[in-house]
């Protein structure tokens, strides 16, 4: 289990489970937990507003206790928030943006360092050449 100054072991488990629901991986792309990107989670959480961070940590703690199939159901529900009354819709959108934001940022920043480079698989090769280097 990776060390995080921000997350407990249960919250890290929750993050890995939610991450693997969002990004299960395939023959080319590693899964979220298999990419090694979870090790960089503090690089995000350290900069979040305290209230947002506390809410996210509480949610990840709950995910740590739930089976993946239930997490999948919750995330699927948060994807379908159109037409949902405002107050509930706001909560669903907040959960969706929070969980998806952390997972997608960690994974698609290609910082994991384990297995195949995400950027190589998706063919993202942006660069700026410095002539002095």
């Amino acid at each position, binding site marked *: 289990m990776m060390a995080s100054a921000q997350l407990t072991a249960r919250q890290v488990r929750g993050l890995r489970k939610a991450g693997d629901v969002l990004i299960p991986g*395939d023959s080319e792309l590693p899964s979220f937990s298999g990419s090694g990107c979870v090790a960089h989670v503090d*690089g995000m959480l350290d*900069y979040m507003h*305290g209230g947002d961070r506390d809410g996210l940590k509480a949610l990840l703690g709950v995910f740590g206790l739930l089976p993946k199939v239930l997490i999948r159901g919750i995330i699927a529900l948060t994807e379908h928030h159109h037409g949902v009354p405002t107050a509930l819709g706001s909560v669903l*959108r907040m959960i969706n*943006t929070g969980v998806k934001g952390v997972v997608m940022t960690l994974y698609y*920043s290609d910082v994991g360092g384990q297995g195949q480079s995400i950027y190589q698989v998706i063919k993202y090769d*942006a660069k*700026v050449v410095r*002539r002095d280097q």
Partner: protein
Amino acid sequence: MSTLYDAIIVGAGTSGSFVAHQLTQGGMKCLVLEAGHFFTRDTYPRTELAANAQLYWGGGVELNRDADIGFLRPKVVGGGSIVNQALMDRFDDVALDAWRAESGVSFFTPAALDPWYQKAEAELSLQTIPVRYHNRNAHIFCEGFDRNGYVWAPLRRAQRDCRYEDGNDCIVCLAGCPIDSKQSMPVTVLRRAIEGGAEVVSDCEIQEVAESNGGVRVRGVQRDGSTAEYQGGRLILASGAIGNSMLLLRSGFGATRPRVGQGFYSHPQYMHLAAYDEPVNAHKGPLQSVKSADAQFRRSGFKLENVYAPPVGIAMLIPGFGRSHARHMKQIAHLACIEVAVRDTNPGRIRAGNKGQPIIEKRLNAEDGARRDRGFAAVRNIFLSTGAREIISGNIAISLHLMGGCNMGTDPARSVVSPEFRLHGSRHIYAADSSVFPNAPGINPALTIMALSTKASEQILADART
């Protein structure tokens, strides 16, 4: 706290840098305070994770209460000029007529602002992208416009020697330009201010401001948690719509100026992607080369932008999850992108939360929704007429143009800042950034912020002489 500054400027973004430069040139001793870090081309964060976390408030994005608009609020020395695409358009009659009607301020006309625009433009290198460097995303944009009878035009950008011949990709510069070609404040106007003697203190978030007969006193928290206090003859608020509103509200100015935090606009932007059989490589070369210049679009309350985003941004935009989401991500090199930017009509409100973070109340009304939908209809026409095989639309808006909250006007009961750029009822507190905008112009605000800040600086220097 022994030093007494002629001017304390809170916020080292576009407005703060221009004001610092002009006031320093005018002989004032200036201090610029910035909550974000002072990066250079050697130290800008180079992963999307680090860039989002370290260059924006809230670790990347802040949401409105309804959680359907994400606000990108720069927190870095240079502000928006570090993370934007440096689009430099003057405001037109449509925008300024609406400003004049809302505010009663007579100088909101293209002719009256012309000298200030000219002065601002003279500080930067402004270029359009040669057609030979346009990427395929731009070609699709132009081809789709032509096929549908829409009008497009080249964009004018603040840049110098981007060396496209070296294969440089401007998308990298959304996290700060590694070759200092983008005309960000730290390599242009702020650099000149510092050379002229202005002091910059970064990583210092100002919590409170107090005004007395003798001037102003500000208190901030530094990165290590320690408190810092500064005093000066005058204060220039330059931390944007949310930052200025929050500082005034926290400092108790809302009690006597009830409009503080109100009249908030943000140009909600909706990105639409389309998959093509052939590679598009929208991330290569100049990120934004062209823009919509269609009078019908302007009348309809939206504009279309030729734009793209790095992988995390695209991943957040694509709905769904699991293997279908991954399938779209593997097509990233085949995706084109056009963004609808809504000229929003429904003002929002900024309030200070208990834990110090902003509470942003912002909704689209029926007219704003209709503007968004009319824009999407045009995007669909463009994509479908250029061979797109699938259109993917995100369901969250992103806002980067954060405006209002300290709106300018002649009536103190309906505005916060006077036409002289002073807080109504104040002798020492000024603002000239996007927070003073009376409503949404529907045009990228950077150049007008520069022009207003240049005009405000002349006012501040004149006030100091009397």
